[in-house]
Structures are given as C-alpha cells and as structure tokens.
C-alpha cells in the first residue's frame, strides 16, 4: 500500500525554502512564490530580506490592517517592516546585490539544468527580439552567493523543467544550488541533481520520471516536512 501523494502548495514550497535559510543570512526574494517565503520564517533565524526596490529588512506580507501602499516587496505586494528596516534607492539596492551581499536569492524559473544554469525571462527560442521580462534576475544571479529556485517540477502538460541543458535562453549560465518544487527538494552540486527531499507519497522513481536529467539520491533522503 502506498501513502497518498501530496503535492506541495505554493505556500508549502515557500515554507520548505524558509526552513533552509541559515541564521543571519541576507536574502533576496524574487517575484511570485519566492516572495511568500518571508511569511514563513522564524524570528530566531535573524534573517534580513532585501528587495530590488531598495527595501532592507522587511517581514511577512501585510494584512489589511497593516497595509501601506508605499511598503512593498519585489512583487509589489504590501509587506511589513522589521524594526531597524531601511530604504535605499534602486542604484544602491543593486550595488549591494552586485557586491555579493546576498547569501541567497530565491527566484522563480521555467527551467533549471544540472550545470546550475536556469531560464526565467523568455519563453521563446526564436532569435532575440529585445522582448522579455528580466527584472533584476540577471543582476542577482550574477553575484548572489547562491541561487535557489522555486517552481513546479513539470510544465502544465507534464514536461520536465529540471533538465540536462536549458532549452530556453538562460538568465545565468550557472549559480543555482537548490531547487524546491511541488514534489521535491533537489540540490544542484558539481553538475549533478541530488534528490534530498520528496513530497509525501512520491518515490524517487516517480520523481526521476518527472525529471529531465539523472537524479542522484541523497543518502539522507527524507520526506518534506509539512
């Protein structure tokens, strides 16, 4: 008898990422699922969240009563500030990004490959026509100490997003060290995917079948804590 399969919701993906953030880190959260992460961390983690728009030290998403339209994250969602938060302008914000102050940036993506490259700004393989949505991803990916990706494990029609090589134009040719999906936590190390955690009810074999490159199994493989 197999346990019931349970895919992670967006919120559970965010919570899974939140648990892995190390004490004292400076963390950038990209648009989408990543911006949910700041709502799932513990104060004891002493994390500092920075946002492309120059907000340093924000906390979770604001509820109706806390909402201030001028205090937003990278997804323009209202957030609250920790005591000791500060604001800088956009050039200073990316100064700290390029200087490598961020221990990690968490981004969304369409594809991730075993070499740590990822694609998140363009869905076409046609010749480049100056169209796309980069935001700050290329600046972040170039210099954050790690890039973590939050995304679904496959496309809507079931094609894998974790691949030998990205098929879409990359956002950066390397940098991804961790991918958290709706079914797995996969480390990206030395050109290999290593399955570290699986969603409830998903076997390594099932996750391998949803993955476009060989998946090594960590000797510490565990179920994602929900």
């Amino acid at each position, binding site marked *: 008898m197999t346990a019931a399969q349970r895919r992670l919701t*967006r919120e559970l993906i965010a919570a899974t990422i939140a648990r892995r953030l190390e004490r004292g880190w400076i963390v950038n959260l*990209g*648009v*989408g*699922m990543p*911006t949910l992460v700041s709502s799932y961390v513990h104060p004891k983690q002493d994390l500092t969240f920075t*946002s*492309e*728009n*120059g*907000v340093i030290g924000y906390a979770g998403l604001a509820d109706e009563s806390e909402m201030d*339209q*001028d*205090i*937003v994250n990278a*997804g*323009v969602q209202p957030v609250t500030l920790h005591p000791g938060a500060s*604001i*800088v*302008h*956009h*050039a200073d*914000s*990316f100064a700290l*990004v*390029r200087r490598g102050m961020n221990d990690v940036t968490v*981004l*969304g*993506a*369409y594809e991730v490959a075993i070499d740590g490259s990822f694609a*998140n*700004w*363009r869905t*076409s393989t046609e010749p*480049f*026509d*100056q*169209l*796309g*949505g*980069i*935001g*700050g*991803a*290329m*600046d*972040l990916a*170039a*210099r954050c100490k790690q890039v973590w*990706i*939050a*995304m*679904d494990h496959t496309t809507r029609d079931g094609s894998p*997003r974790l691949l030998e090589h990205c098929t879409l*134009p*990359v*956002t*950066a*040719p390397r940098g991804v060290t961790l991918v958290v999906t*709706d079914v797995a936590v996969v480390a990206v190390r030395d050109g290999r995917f290593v399955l570290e955690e699986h969603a409830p009810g998903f076997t390594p074999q099932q996750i391998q079948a949803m993955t476009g490159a060989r998946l090594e199994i960590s000797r510490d493989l565990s179920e994602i804590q929900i």
Partner: protein
Amino acid sequence: MRQPIVCATMSEAVADIPDDITLLVPGFGPGLPFNLLTALYDQGARGLTTVSNGVGGAPAADGRKGLGEFVEAGRVKKVIAAFTAPTHPSRGSIVVDMVRGGTLEAELVPQGTLAERVRAGGAGIPAFYTPASVGTLLAEGKEHREFDGETYVMERAIFADYAFIRAWRADTAGNLVYRMAARNFNPVFAMGARHVIVEVEQPIVPAGEIPPDQVHTPGIYVERLVQIPPDGYFSSGRMPAATTEPRGSR
C-alpha cells in the same frame, strides 16, 4: 540660492516639452509620476524614448495614463526597460505586438544595469563594467572584458532630456523626500536628466523646513515642482505589468 519654478498645474509643468525626447519614468509599484504622465498624454508629445522598469499594464479605470497608453497611441519610438514583455507567455501585450510589427523599438536591460546606467549618466561616467547578463543572449554583441579573472560586459550611460519624478515632500528650494519604497528609481532618475519635473504629494514647504541631512534629492537637480491637486492620482493603484504575474507559477 537657485529656486525651481513652482507650477500651478500639471499641464503648465509639461506644456513646453517637445516631441522626440528621452524621458525617464521611475516607479516600481509606488513612486510612478502618473499625474505628469497623464498631463503629457493630454499635451500630445510624441516620438518618445522612454526609460522605465516596465511599460505598464491594462488601462486604469480612473483615467490615469501610464506608458502603456503612450505606446498604444503610437507616441513612443522606443522603450528601454527591464520588462518589455509580460513574464507569462499567455498574456497579450501591445509592446510585444508593436515590436514584432516593427512600429516600436525595444531595448531590454537588466534592472540593476538600468539603474546603474542612469546613475552613471547622472555622475558623468560614460561607461562601466558589470557582471550582469554575462553568458546570456543580452550580452551578445556587447564588449566583454576580464578583470581579476572574472568576465564583465561594458555598459554605456544613459543621460536623458527629461525626468518625471514623484516625491512625497518638497520645499521651495526643490529639495525632495520620498516615502518608503516609493523612492525606488526616483533619486537616481532625478540625477540623470537635463530637465527634472517633480510632482509632489504633500504641500510644498518653505526652504529650510526639510533638514539638510534628510534630503533625498538636492534641489539643484529640480527644474519644476508641482503639487498634486486634491483630485489628482495619489495611490499607485495599478501594478506595472512586470510585477503582476509570478514567474514559474502554475
């Protein structure tokens, strides 16, 4: 001290802006100078080259105009932005249609590079090197160079004819203060244009009321100041296209 001109209305503030200018438009959610943009839309200027984070989304119900409306009206020659297309492929975009149709030019720039190019323009730095975009399509054709074993691309400064700025407070000397994340590109763009026109939320105070240590943009950068009227556009309301749809979401 030199004082900026305090204009009575938005339309007065933009009345003499010619066609074919380069215009900096800050904003990232909050901090978008919608009142000046709406006045410029009514004024009729065309042939614009715009520099901004994104190029706007769907039309706003309250009548305010964003860059999207300028593009749609065929009044923009070129957009320089970190988002020239929606991140989600299923969503339509007038920018995408017009660029593919050859009636609009686009230049896609990483957001940090965009901010730094305008900062460089405002700092008399003609070019600099950045690691952003190395190894991607965006770096193709750009000059690459190694420093201390790392590869960088050279980026050129942007210095514009005009900047529209959205401030929270201002004094009669033109000193500006922004509020929270409404700051974003504003102080950088205020340095990067020959003519800087500012819309301000709070009543303009006498010079000296903003302490020198708390000024975000010194008044010498400001050419014209205009207070947002009570029936003006105060809240950001509409999100830029860039930020409405999460990447890689289901």
